């Protein structure tokens, strides 16, 4: 598949996210706004497009919404997402007091507990780029103990897959560093590709998108399986740019009290945009952030 095809796909997703950002700007603050902001940021950077009104508009609204709010408003949000949002909002030229407070607290906590760094590499990377911490400075997480576990991972449950994801992200700094060689690396890469096929073949697109990035972090990236996965994700994109053929379940989702657009399509579309950008756009990594002064 040509990168141009992925570019078109990302561009369509960006258009959908931009439309959604207009809706979110009218609503109270929620984690969904941060997810949409992240999706717009990834697509803009991957496409190397010029200033996106959707991104800046949403960043401005989040900045305003969070200015008077205390921790309660953001306490349930994912910490990496909060810190990335802080980075994006600042990069767009807006203040983000509640987020900055949060960032300082996380930086202090990590400073006091060095052992926690391995579990919070994503947070540490963003904090470093924000000038709030000097991590990462040491070696990436060692995976040499995973040789024996590689085949057992074939039977991983979702929790074990998330744990594997966290370890490889820590070892590669979310794909921004070459993974050090370890015995069984090839085997591990094979198992991840198997999990990827199983997830997408079973239409678990969210897990599949995550595993697609993981497969690329561990390499090699020119595998047929990776190209198949990219192609599969693109074929699940609807004409308006969102990902996932779930409209046939619309009634069931409504009955379950879910807003399909925000609760299903938004997180899934951001996951797919992230995976396609990192595996198909040369040199793109979400966590490859330029330093930013607060």
């Amino acid at each position: 598949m040509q990168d141009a095809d992925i570019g078109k796909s990302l561009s369509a997703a960006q258009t959908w996210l931009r439309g959604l950002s207009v809706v979110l700007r009218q609503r109270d603050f929620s984690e969904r706004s941060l997810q949409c902001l992240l999706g717009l940021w990834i697509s803009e950077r991957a496409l190397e497009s010029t200033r996106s009104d959707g991104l800046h508009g949403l960043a401005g609204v989040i900045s305003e919404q969070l200015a008077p709010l205390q921790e309660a408003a953001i306490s349930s949000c994912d910490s990496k997402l909060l810190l990335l949002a802080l980075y994006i909002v600042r990069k767009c030229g807006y203040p983000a007091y509640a987020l900055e407070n949060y960032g300082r607290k996380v930086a202090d906590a990590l400073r006091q507990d060095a052992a926690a760094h391995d579990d919070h590499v994503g947070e540490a990377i963003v904090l470093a780029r924000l000038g709030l911490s000097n991590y990462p400075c040491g070696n990436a997480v060692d995976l040499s103990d995973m040789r024996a576990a590689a085949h057992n991972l074939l039977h991983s449950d979702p929790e074990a897959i998330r744990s594997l994801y966290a370890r490889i992200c820590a070892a590669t700094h979310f794909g921004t560093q070459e993974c050090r060689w370890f015995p069984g690396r090839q085997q591990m890469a094979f198992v991840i590709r198997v999990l990827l096929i199983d997830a997408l073949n079973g239409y678990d697109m969210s897990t599949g998108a995550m595993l697609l990035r993981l497969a690329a972090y561990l390499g090699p990236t020119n595998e047929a399986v990776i190209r198949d996965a990219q192609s599969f994700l693109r074929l699940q994109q609807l004409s308006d740019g969102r990902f996932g053929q779930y409209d046939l379940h619309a009634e069931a989702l409504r009955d379950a009290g879910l807003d399909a657009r925000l609760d299903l399509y938004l997180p899934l579309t951001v996951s797919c945009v992230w995976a396609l950008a990192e595996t198909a756009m040369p040199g793109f990594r979400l966590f490859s952030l330029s330093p930013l002064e607060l």
Partner: protein
Amino acid sequence: MLPAGLMPFAVAEKSIRWIHGNLSYFDPFAKSPISEDLRHKALAELVLLCLLLKRHENFRSLPEIRDVMAFVADLNDNPFFEASLCRWNDALVPVLILAATLEAYGLTAENDRRQMIQKVVRDSNVCIIERIPYRQLELRHILDAGGFAHGLPSYRELWSRTLVAHRPNLMFLSDNDVYSITHALFYVSDFSAHNVDFLTPQEIAYVHDVVTHLLGVYIRRKNWDLAAELLAAEKCLGRISRHSVMGWRLLLEAQHADGRIDGPYLGQLADDKRDAEHLFDACYHTTLVSALAGMVWSRRS
């Protein structure tokens, strides 16, 4: 734990024991709650297995195989097979398998069908009716295995029409698609008896890559039916991998003491329906194909 090299034979031997113990259920003419079509299919697969086991000294001398072949020879007298041969072109393959296998074991009697089969192949629509590509490969394979003359295209030509030759996207494959991949490999390699020499080393490497990834997926899903087929398919490519060793270990672990290996749909069978016949229905294919895989992996005599 059994050394890796002995696992395939161990699985096959135990599977054959289970098949022997359940032989009566393969009779398509007996009264049974299992559909007649399924039992005809099961019988054809059993007979094909016997044809392939004949090539291996370690298997063909098993007493269970002698009993199975005596059972098959008895069934061969049923007029159904004569009618299949002469009346229904799409039902020829099981008759071919039966004829080739009985000949291989020297069990042909006065009702030898060779001449009649050759006439049907020449004068009927058997070779020109439309079949999906791997079924056409199946026909060619059994005609060749039985030594019958035919005008079917070459293996290379038939292979080029299959799903796997078109480099499918693995994310979209259904179970049936995977069966079409394994079966295509069985037929073009004569169940690992021949090298697939019309494929380039690069093409072999690509197909092997597909097979090993799918093997991982079906091991993950504990679908021992397709896992066993994929293990056999890997050997048909003349390749092995570290993943196949794991596959054999897990297949051995999944095998019950009596030799049965649970089929992928057994879980859907309610507890009160798990009588011997329904267990046979749900598990015979997985057990049989595990015997086949074990045979393919065992050292040829």
